[in-house]
């Protein structure tokens, strides 16, 4: 196993000013991580999900050697990250989606060259990696631009490249697609898949975008209130929590009533409507039979419930 966490726990001390007192404070211990255990194999891509404040970033920071866990044991490739931080970080790449590792006012290439010096990457090797990365992420024209002039999507592509200049075996991505437009999202996703396939880079990414997970990760870990609540495939979650499906229809004659048996009308207009139904309670056939008596169906399509809805149901059921 490349990464193993055993009963990792982390608490934060939070001081809260008491109302009406100038000096008196209340000291409370906030449990960021209870007892989290998991392991990740070399070459896996794992999606790490959970609501805000669940402890995802804390876990990543422990695995990166930034934070010292209060309890438990974290090993990454045989290393205990916070104990051998300098040695450890040579082998990992970290992207914090909301923070930049690029110097704001100088061309991107200058930031890259500085990172080369910081990591002490051999010149020839660096040249090769940089060429490959800029080809894959289409960085060519961006390299001469100061980071402050880049769009968010362009910047993120550069950030990802910056995290990989020293060719790490492990990549931690903390919300790498936050705020990106569709094109940039796709570019970042494709790239992650490619380096995973080509170089066997192990990837752990946190995200709130379920489509990231769907496109990238076979395995999903769900964290909630500092505990690991689920570890398995996305498919299994979908099957279990998808429940309802969505039915869109266009019809010619007739009218839909305000209520249908076994289905919920999400939206209805003259000639088209969207319904939601639960296939385990009402079969599609029965629904169609009912509908075809009311209207003349022109076109229908059935979609899985949107992933966001699935996750919302899941979070709700887990009491998050």
């Amino acid at each position, binding site marked *: 196993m490349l990464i193993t966490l055993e009963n990792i726990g982390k608490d934060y001390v939070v001081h809260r000013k008491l109302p009406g007192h100038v000096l008196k404070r209340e000291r409370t211990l906030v449990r960021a991580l209870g007892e989290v255990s998991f392991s990740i194999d070399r070459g896996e891509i794992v999606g790490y999900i959970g609501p805000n404040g669940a402890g995802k970033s804390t876990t990543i920071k422990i695995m*990166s050697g*930034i*934070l010292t866990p209060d309890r438990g044991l974290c090993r990454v490739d045989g290393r205990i990250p916070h104990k051998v*931080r300098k040695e450890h970080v040579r082998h990992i790449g*970290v992207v914090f989606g*909301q923070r930049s590792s690029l110097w704001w*006012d*100088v061309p991107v290439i200058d930031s890259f060259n500085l990172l080369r010096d910081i990591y002490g990457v051999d010149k020839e090797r660096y040249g090769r990696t940089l060429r490959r990365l800029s080809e894959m992420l289409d960085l060519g024209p961006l390299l001469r631009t*100061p980071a402050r002039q880049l769009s968010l999507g362009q910047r993120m592509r550069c950030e990802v490249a910056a995290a990989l200049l020293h060719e790490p075996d492990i990549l931690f991505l903390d919300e790498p697609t936050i705020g990106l437009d569709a094109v940039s999202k796709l570019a970042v996703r494709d790239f992650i898949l490619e380096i995973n396939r080509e170089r066997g880079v192990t990837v752990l990414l946190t995200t709130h975008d379920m489509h990231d997970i769907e496109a990238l990760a076979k395995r999903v870990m769900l964290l909630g209130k500092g505990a690991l609540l689920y570890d398995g495939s996305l498919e299994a979650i979908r099957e279990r929590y998808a429940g309802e499906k969505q039915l869109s229809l266009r019809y010619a004659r007739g009218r839909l009533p305000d209520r249908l048996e076994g289905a919920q009308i999400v939206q209805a207009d003259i000639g088209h409507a969207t319904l939601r139904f639960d296939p385990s309670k009402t079969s599609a056939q029965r629904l169609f039979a009912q509908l075809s008596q009311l209207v003349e169906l022109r076109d229908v399509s059935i979609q899985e419930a949107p992933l966001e809805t699935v996750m919302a149901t899941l979070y709700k059921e887990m009491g998050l």
Partner: protein
Amino acid sequence: MQVLRLYFRHVAIHVRAAMEYRASFALMLVIQVLTPLSALAGVYFLFQNFGALQDWTLPQILLCFAVTYLSFALAECFGRGFDTFSRLIRQGSFDRLMVQPRNLILLTFCSDFALNRVSKIGLALCLLVYAALHAGIRWTAYKLLVLVLMALSGTLVFLGVWIAFAALCFVTIEGLEVVNIFTDGGRELSSYPLDIYLKPVCRFFTLVIPFGVMNYLPLRFLVGKAPAIYGLSPLYALPFLAACVGVFYLGVRHYRSAG
């Protein structure tokens, strides 16, 4: 060597970044000399009225003043990363430094460089030369060495205070304005020879936060009020700095990161 190269590569980037905003940079150059100039005016008017401060002459006081301001400006210029350490923590930039395979103190030094302090450094240097020539000191090689030592050790003391108080940011996340009592306050206070103050103040700023050893004690030697060994007291800045660095690493272990 490699460390220095890395540091100066960072400096080069900071300089280029500063040059992106030339007007702002030029303005800062001017603003930076206003504080020392007004403090200098204070010294001047003081002497206009009283003629002397205990048994110190104006050029002697100026020497003390110039050395202290030079030290402070150098510390600000090179140690800006520690001066504004709370910002580094709050914005989460320190997380970024922690995932780089280098010494954290070095990385913090690399994280900022205040080129606009050159005007202040220049002013302090001019003043230092003027005061050195008029303080009635017969300069020898050893005395010059002591003078250099004074400026450098002062820089180290200011840096040390920042580094030690940076450790507090690990716990509080917020910056503590209290630090300024010791840095800005220390600078103002130690711009004059310490013996003009009350004994407890004098002791605190000699032994606990050793501003005294960097200017007051060696200055006494320079003007012939104390034996030559006093000239070496600035070396005390080294163990002081080491202790501050120790405190810093103690803080790193309690780091809890923002957000």
